């Protein structure tokens, strides 16, 4: 049962619970009109302590398409209500009006603090460089829908694997499926953090290799997950400039890949995928956003129990 639960980390749901969410999302994709009023009278609170228009729009669109309503803020500075108030107090107040909350926060673990202080379902929409489970659900639904299954895949993750929250979540989630192999492509400075290597990959016995060359990895991949190097994660401008264009996927490099390799990217992209790749039938990153809204619709329904 997912009713009344929180989604804080990608592993909060079992594989069979995830399958339930994906099955519902697939029903919604086929006949969205059947779900246009299921959340009528319900209120979603979007608590965005740092702006992320893309993620907020996806949640708001999901709630409106289910016939529900939305309240919230997208920058704490514009809201005197939240200024200086603890997360615990804010969530207790919001729970007086709302039925479900979505939180994005620059500090790691912030949505967990909220969840510990309310019985209302709380969804983590990104906490610092830590976790972003609904992006993971989006990625999984996209892969499952296109590849037909989440087993026996060689998955390449490329770019900023150190600070990139989406890659950490995706690795943790995919590591639970059978026959998954990882190829981690990054410069030395942006390799995955120790806890991913130790607590996730080694403990689960998943095969993984860490390489610096994208060209070397491309021929063996079923999926290539590209990420951008985020400026705000760097303390020093020089490092950012040096590393931001380290990997650029272009038509030439795509020739090295299988003809059914999928290219994914959580968006927005900067330079890491050349626009010429957009027309390649293996580019799935724009479809991903659509799957993102559908999976959030399914998630909201499951957590509300409607």
């Amino acid at each position, binding site marked *: 049962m997912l009713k009344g639960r929180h989604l804080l980390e990608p592993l909060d749901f079992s594989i069979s619970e995830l399958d339930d969410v994906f099955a519902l999302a697939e029903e919604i994709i086929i006949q969205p009109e059947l779900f246009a009023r299921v959340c009528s009278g319900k209120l979603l609170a979007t608590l965005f302590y740092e702006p992320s228009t893309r993620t907020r729009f996806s949640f708001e669109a999901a709630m409106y398409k289910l016939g529900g309503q939305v309240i919230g803020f997208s920058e704490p500075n514009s809201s005197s209500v939240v200024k200086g108030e*603890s997360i615990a107090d804010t969530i207790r107040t919001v729970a007086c009006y709302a039925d479900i909350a979505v939180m994005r926060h620059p500090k790691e*673990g912030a949505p967990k603090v909220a969840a510990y202080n309310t019985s209302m379902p709380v969804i983590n929409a990104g906490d610092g460089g830590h976790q972003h489970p609904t992006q993971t659900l989006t990625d999984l639904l996209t892969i499952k829908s296109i590849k037909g299954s989440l087993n026996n895949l060689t998955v390449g993750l490329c770019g900023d694997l150190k600070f990139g929250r989406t890659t950490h979540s995706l690795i943790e989630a995919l590591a639970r499926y059978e026959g998954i192999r990882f190829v981690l492509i990054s410069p030395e400075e942006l390799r995955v953090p120790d*806890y991913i290597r130790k607590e996730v990959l080694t403990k689960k016995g998943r095969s993984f290799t860490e390489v610096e060359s994208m060209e070397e990895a491309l021929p063996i991949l079923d999926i290539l997950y590209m990420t951008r190097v985020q400026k705000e994660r760097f303390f020093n401008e020089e490092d950012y400039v040096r590393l931001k264009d380290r990997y650029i996927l272009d038509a030439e490099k795509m020739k090295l890949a299988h003809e059914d390799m999928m290219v994914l990217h959580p968006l927005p992209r900067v330079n890491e995928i050349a626009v010429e790749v957009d027309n390649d039938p293996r580019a799935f990153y724009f479809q991903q956003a659509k799957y993102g809204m559908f999976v959030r619709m399914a998630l909201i329904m499951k957590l509300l129990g409607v």
Partner: protein
Amino acid sequence: MVLVNSIAKGIVIDHVSAGRGIKIINHLGIDKAEYTVAFIMNASSNKYGKKDIIKIENEIDVDLAALGLIDPQATVNIIESHVITRKINLKLPEKVVNIITCKNPRCVTSVEKNAPQIFRLVDKENREYQCEYCDDIVDVKGE
């Protein structure tokens, strides 16, 4: 054994790794206590070579989780009428609350001061604990 028998009612923390006794005393705050406390350093031990022993002539509440964290090798003996009525073998606690502080500047506990500091044991051998909020790993090897 002679020494243990010398208190009638109280607690004996035995088999403390030599040198860690002082940390336990500081943690329990018994250096300022009004009751009798005996602290023996570098006693010889068949099992460990050298050990510290702390004897407290009073029934006090001992935080076993914190003690286990400082020295999992120690044992806590409860004494009544000169005999040991209960022997507790310490171990590394699975979960500790408000003992370890998260040092990760990006962790929510750095701004949400009232949130309890929760850590869980992830690696017994290396004495590694993981922050409940940010997943950062700290090792609590005795310094």
